[in-house]
């Protein structure tokens, strides 16, 4: 009994140690915030277009009834990583036939217009979320974030941070394929 009690601290330390070892897993990001939206219907929202752009606005109804799942990307011109991500998303739209909708988060319209003119505009629709309220509805924790929404309006996948770099692109591509968001026979 005495020996058992004396051994308890050691056992506790080993248990904690195992958790620490697990926690050091380089794939684990302690800052990642889980989403409650996965497998849930996309939140209701109705956003006006960005003034000065011809791209129409975005509402929840636009996400429903599509034959394939669509991608919703939250972006802003002030967001540095969004630039890098923009090129990747553009490629997905141009080469793979992905359908991309945008939520322009807390961005001055003139900045957004200039940004899209510089970089190109791959978005079918862009809603301007000036107040950030729609961002909250989506459980946004930062920009950029990217969601895949099914034809019935269910959120299938969420990517926090820019889809940049081989690992991120691979994960995103997998998610797109799994969701069936890419048209059949598309390149790649």
């Amino acid at each position, binding site marked *: 009994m005495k020996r058992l009690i004396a051994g308890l601290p050691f056992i506790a330390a080993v248990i904690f140690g195992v958790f620490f070892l697990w926690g050091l897993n380089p794939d684990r990001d302690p800052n990642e915030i889980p989403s409650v939206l996965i497998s849930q219907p996309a939140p209701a929202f109705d956003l006006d277009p960005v003034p000065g752009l011809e791209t129409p606005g975005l509402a929840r109804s636009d996400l429903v009834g599509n034959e394939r799942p669509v991608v919703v990307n939250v972006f802003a011109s002030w967001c540095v990583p969004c630039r*890098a991500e923009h*090129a990747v998303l553009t490629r997905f739209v141009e080469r793979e036939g992905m359908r991309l909708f945008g939520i322009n988060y807390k961005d001055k319209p003139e900045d957004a217009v200039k940004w899209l003119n*510089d*970089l190109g505009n791959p978005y079918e629709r862009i809603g301007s979320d000036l107040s950030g309220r729609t961002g909250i509805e989506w459980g946004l924790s930062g920009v950029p974030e990217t969601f895949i929404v099914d034809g019935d309006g269910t959120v299938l996948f969420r990517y926090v941070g820019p889809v940049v770099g081989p690992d991120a692109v691979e994960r995103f591509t997998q998610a797109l394929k799994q969701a069936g968001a890419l048209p059949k026979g598309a390149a790649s």
Partner: protein
Amino acid sequence: MIWGIFVLLTLVAIGIVLYPLLLSKSNTLTRGDAVPAILADQMREIQRDMDRGLISEQEAQAARLEIKKRILATTRNSEEKAGSSRNGGRVTLVVAAVLAPVIAAGYYLTMGSPEVPSMAFAARAEERAQTDEVTALAIQLRERLVSDPTGGPSEGWMLLGQTYQRMGRAADAVEAFEVVAEREDATSATFSMLAEAVAVANDGVVIPRAKLAIDRALDLDPSNPAATYFESLYYFQQEETRKAYDLLVSRLNQEEAYVPWMETYAAQINRIAAAADLPVVNLPSGPTSQPGPSAADVAAASEMNDADRAEFIRSMVSRLAERLEDEPDDLDGWMRLANAYTVLQEPDRAVEAYRKAEALLEQQPASDPRRAAVRAALERLGG
């Protein structure tokens, strides 16, 4: 000097390990000595507490008894072990004294950098002054170009753009290059530099606007290595790794002899190769310094840090001048050098350079616009 200090430190370390050899043998403190001292102190403590009336006589008695028992136990315990202390093992100590510095030296010789000098910030005033000078020059140059009613010579704008680029002010560089890009005399290099500046201004991303400039650059000169470099970077960022790789490799293979930008190419190829599991390339070692800022130098500059850039700018003008010593037939080179000297407010040298250009222009058709430019410049400089 530094090795002398290392030797000194090593000797100190050896001395420290050997130090016990100097100590006398007998003064080892044992438990049998140390513990009763403390217990005796506790006995006195009890007496004091009792004197203060903090504990009763009966409590004191019980406490004393406990301590006495401990004293007895300690004495018996240490009696059992007493007298077994040894003083041997000196050889081990010497071995340790030798081994310790060997370990330290072994580590240091692999990981240390004894050849790198220290450089206190205060001792680097000259270096700073040069950087400041470049900044001042850039400001002057810009003022002159902006105030020029004809919009300023393209060479001047190019120089300004390159200077900004190397100062890390990519957005300003873009502006400068764009002035030239809209002119008739824009060359392939103009567009490849513009592309680079745009990319750098956008956190290294070759955005569509940069791609447009690359395309123009390749239209004008398909062999422009900088343009191909950024084109490849564009595809790399588009995740078209294979295409990015092939572009670089095929351009590299077009060259027969060594050119400095190959280093940059090779580095980028190998980066892509590492990411995409493709074969790496090895450059045949070539001459390490080639005169004149080449397109690949420009490409390399994008990977430099600020200090390197500053260094780069400083040497740019002199490198140009040196190169022209060897290649006196480079008309545009002389024009650029002359312009640079003008900006540097060294009119004599500027005049000299313009004269060289003028001489070369003799062979050009009379309609060459550069003739007028040189004449105008010489007039301005009073040469």
